[in-house]
């Protein structure tokens, strides 16, 4: 038997922290993807009027 028996609650906390970490990573990836899509659309000629008039 192990000297320190881990309580089940630590597993649950680990799961919660990992879950939240993954959600945050996914959110970062989402913002990055959205930025790439929006900027590449700008480059396709849909420049905002202020830039287009220069």
């Amino acid at each position, binding site marked *: 038997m192990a000297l320190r028996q881990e309580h089940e609650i630590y597993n649950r906390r680990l799961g*919660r922290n990992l879950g939240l970490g993954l959600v945050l990573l996914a959110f970062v990836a989402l913002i990055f*993807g959205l930025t790439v899509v929006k900027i590449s659309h700008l480059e396709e000629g849909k420049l905002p009027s202020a830039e287009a008039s220069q």
Partner: protein
Amino acid sequence: MSDLSAIDHGQEAGFGDYVQLLKPRVMSLVVFTAMVGLIVAPGHVHPFVAFTAILFIALGGGASGALNMWYDADIDRVMRRTQGRPIPAGRVTEGEALGLGLALSVLSCLMLGLATNWFAGAFLGFTIFFYVVIYTMWLKRSTPQNIVIGGAAGAFPPMIGWAAVTGGASVESLLMFLLIFMWTPPHFWSLALFMKDDYSRAGVPMLTVTHGRRAARRHILAYTLLLAPFPLALALSSIGGPVTLAASVVLNLIFILGAVRIVRRDEASAEADGYKAEKAFFRFSLAYLFLHFSALLVEAGLAPFGLGGW
């Protein structure tokens, strides 16, 4: 909180409990109908933007689910169907649900607005407000028509999906709304018929409790008949087509026949066979909605091949 007190408490929430607060099963309906609204809308959005839009519409729906669980925790503790939810089970506090719901509401509206347009973002905000304030806080506990008007909240997602592409509303998106709006009462009343004592124990004025089960049966038939013109009109609209029309005729006939069966039964015969007809009607109502929206998807999918649509 020290580690010891946490262990003593023994009811700490896992990640899944927070997911549970977002009512994932309701979310699946929101995702599906919003996706159809987005796909059948005229115009084009980048697939990644479309994905983001659906994700945040779903998250907005989830946020309103969390706010609903926060406000309805007292009812959920009494009703058998909802006693296992994270708050009644003691794994998540009411304050946590409120915080999560509010934070996700703001985030989802902002992100939908940034990703698509502010009309869609504001529409999502209005939907959350409608579900939480108008339905959960006000109508659910005060009128037996709660399901009828509250159903509007569940009917908005395809309109939001449509708005994400077009930046506005139209007859077609309104018809998708009306299809879900009119479908909700018979769907929930049939559930209330065989989930008997739950609503009365919780003091929610369901039609079955306030006006009796006989009246609820008649209402199911009336709403099923009133519902039928809307999917048929949708099938004849610019996003419909022969597939939708054929599907709609068949589905409405089966639905109306099911409602007639329900109205012809009395409580004794329903109890004798364990609410077989009511349960069958409830299950079919899910297929009814799913197949109508699937038919619209088929029309959109056939369009590039010169098929589908009128």
